[in-house]
């Protein structure tokens, strides 16, 4: 492929600058270039070429020096936060940010785990690929219980955009007609195994309000012709997606949106370019472009555009906005409301239950399914739960124990070896993904003095869980155990997250809400089209825009919201309004 789309310096005034190249940056670049705009994508990290730059892909454990473990001191010094991520290891470390180089601060007793990608493609190379639509239960949630401001959009505003991005990205799943979880445009779902099918029957018979469906994910179970044309192939069920997928079987910027954007010949990319701030022109009240620091040379440069899309990740975008200071915006660009940086949310993970399923020794499965059965939310749907607001989903699979489980069992020797070879018992787990209320106190700000090695002010993150969260965690574990019991599980063990330290805020990697959408410019940063209330040509379409966090994995919504905002922005640009 011709690589002349990579630029360093340019005096060109682009039609649009897109900051970030992850899930939303990729979508913004695709949409804007396909509509004929000349676009510059600015990425803080290094280039990653699809297929070429996946050094960990397909490398057998025994060919790695420590079988995917890493040098202790290296991890202690440089990946002390990133190592908490389930996907972090020797084979994938190149896609995680170096914690030593990009520090941030948190108050005592309020840990926050900020998991970050640092390359072209961002976290689209690392995400868990779970893809769910929000419904009007979610868009109405703030208005209904009074927590947070009202969303300026409803399901009908986003419905066609969900369909639009789903067809391109490729989402596997089953049509279910569940009101709280609208159906997507689906490729075939992954299969249940026979144990899960048996449990599903028992669970649904006992709890009419709880349906166990197959987790919906951005994997090509059966590529459509347009996927094949993009060079994307069927998912092989390796479930090693975070090492990179040369089959292009899961959605990433590299597999899906970037090739589409490059095909237009309208895209330029600047990598190793850390955006310092948005350049603001007070005379026109417009964003003029971005100021960047070259991560390799420390030089500063400016890029210019007719509009700016911030897609730099929730906290990345917020950090840039807070650092974009002018006379008009002394606390950060487009922050006349004062809510920029506030209302940070994440999902409640880590609570649930697990139990053994006796029998089924003759049953097994083949392949490593990259998703799991899923029970959509049933709390606070028809009646108010006495202890907490909002809802949660439960997910988990039935699988047989492998060698990893046997270390905790007594025994050794030939019989022990044979037991491992025969695969162990079946276990079924259910873990929650719970919604959090938007709270002003959960916030990020620029540290008054500390800077990173490039001179960017560090982010200070102050976020903690509340009673509503802990009560929901309690209910998640109890309900998971109740469901497992109904399914016939034995020796059920519950896990409940009860303190900030049990599982840090942020580790669900669904941080969102720090530049929220809203109807009122006094209480929100963005309008219903992801346009900042204050600066008409400045858009934010990543997780920062979220007004509430719902209980679903958010990335699919970010994609749909981005595509919709691009459509709006281009129309406005053509009308001369921005």
């Amino acid at each position, binding site marked *: 492929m011709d690589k002349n789309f990579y630029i360093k310096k340019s005096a060109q005034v682009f039609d649009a600058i897109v900051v970030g190249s992850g899930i939303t940056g990729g979508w913004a670049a695709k949409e804007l270039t396909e509509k004929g705009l000349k676009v510059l994508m600015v990425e803080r990290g290094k280039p990653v070429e699809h297929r070429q730059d996946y050094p960990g892909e*397909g490398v*057998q*454990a*025994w060919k790695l*020096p*420590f*079988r*995917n*473990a*890493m*040098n*202790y001191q290296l991890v202690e010094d440089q990946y002390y936060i990133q190592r908490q991520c389930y996907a972090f290891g020797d084979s994938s470390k190149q896609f995680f940010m170096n914690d030593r180089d990009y520090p941030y601060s948190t108050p005592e007793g309020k840990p926050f785990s900020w998991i970050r990608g640092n390359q072209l493609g961002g976290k689209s190379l690392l995400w868990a690929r779970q893809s769910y639509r929000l419904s009007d239960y979610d868009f109405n949630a703030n208005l209904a219980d009074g927590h947070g401001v009202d969303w300026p959009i409803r399901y009908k505003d986003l419905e066609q955009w969900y369909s639009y991005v789903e067809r391109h990205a490729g989402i596997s799943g089953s049509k279910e007609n569940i009101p709280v979880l609208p159906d997507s445009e689906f490729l075939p779902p*992954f*299969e*249940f*195994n*026979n144990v*899960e*099918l048996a449990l599903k029957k028992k669970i649904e018979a006992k709890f009419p309000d709880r349906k166990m469906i197959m987790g919906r994910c951005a994997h090509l*179970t059966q590529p459509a012709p347009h996927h094949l044309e993009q060079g994307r192939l*069927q*998912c*092989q*069920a*390796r479930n090693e997606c975070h090492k990179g997928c040369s089959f292009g079987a899961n959605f990433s910027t590299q597999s899906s949106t970037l090739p589409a954007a490059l095909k237009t010949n309208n895209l330029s990319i600047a990598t190793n370019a850390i955006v310092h701030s948005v350049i603001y022109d007070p005379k026109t009240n417009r964003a003029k472009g971005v100021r960047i620091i070259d991560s390799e040379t420390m030089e500063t440069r400016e890029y210019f555009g007719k509009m700016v899309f911030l897609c730099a990740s929730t906290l990345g975008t917020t950090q840039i906005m807070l650092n974009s200071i002018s006379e008009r915006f002394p606390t950060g660009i487009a922050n006349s409301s004062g809510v920029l940086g506030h209302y940070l949310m994440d999902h409640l993970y880590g609570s649930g239950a697990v139990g053994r399923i006796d029998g089924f*020794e*003759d*049953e*097994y*499965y*083949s*392949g*490593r*399914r990259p998703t799991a059965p899923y029970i959509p939310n049933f709390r606070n749907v028809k009646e108010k739960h006495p202890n907490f607001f909002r809802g949660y989903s439960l997910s988990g699979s039935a*699988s*047989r124990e*492998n*060698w*990893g489980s*046997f*270390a*905790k069992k*007594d*025994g*050794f*020797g*030939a019989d*022990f*070896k*044979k037991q*491992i*070879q*025969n*695969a*162990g018992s079946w276990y079924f787990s259910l873990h929650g993904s719970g919604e959090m209320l938007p709270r002003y106190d959960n916030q990020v700000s620029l540290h008054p003095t500390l800077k990173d090695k490039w001179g960017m002010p560090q982010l200070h993150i102050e976020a903690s869980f509340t009673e509503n969260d802990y009560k929901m965690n309690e209910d998640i574990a109890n309900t998971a155990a109740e469901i497992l019991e109904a399914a016939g599980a034995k020796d059920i063990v519950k896990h409940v997250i009860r303190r900030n330290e049990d599982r840090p805020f942020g580790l669900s990697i669904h941080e969102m809400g720090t530049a929220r959408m809203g109807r009122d410019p006094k209480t929100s940063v963005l309008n219903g089209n992801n346009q900042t209330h204050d600066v008409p040509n400045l858009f934010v379409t990543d997780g920062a825009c979220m007004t509430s966090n719902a209980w679903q994995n958010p990335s699919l919504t970010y994609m749909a919201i981005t595509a919709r905002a691009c459509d709006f922005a281009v129309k406005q640009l053509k009308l001369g309004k921005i």
Partner: protein
Amino acid sequence: MPHNNKLAETTGLEAENPRRAALKQMALLFGLSLSAQSLDALAATVKGTMPHVTKFLSPDQLQMTGEIADLIIPTTDTPGALAVNVHGFMDSYLAECVSKNDQKKFLDGLKKINKVAEDKFGKVFLACSHKQHIQLLTAIEKYDLGFTPEDKDFFTQFKSLTLFGYYTSEVGATQELAYLPIPGGYKGNFPFAKVGKAWALN
């Protein structure tokens, strides 16, 4: 040294025949009758896999680690931990991938086993017979013979590292278990008998 020294044999310090003989002995112990051909193949696997220079453990500690690992995963119809150099992997792993504190815990754990061996049998672990080895490891799991819950925690860690080293080795993954790097899709209705053993990658 007078004790049964399988490891010395695997390091090539002694002639090849004893290695083959030891493997045969091990096989007999578990009621396996290995063909001359498979014994040779096994002996060849063993040969050259032992690190001559240790990174963290002393030669004695490495030898003891190898013995214990092989008691956990012995050679059966497939090679065991010793034959695939799990102790060599454990030595590297302990040198590179764990904290100083965990390194110390590991050495303390080995020391404790030696102490109990001396109290009970009057000799260090490596000098004990196979039967005594089994008695000692069984005692750790039952907090017997003066072993404490902390000693069992050490043994759990040891076992965990042994299983990790063995089942992520080429032999452990592809011979002992079923290795399917590119499954081609997920099948949920799949009888165990069709593969007959656990998948190496879950």
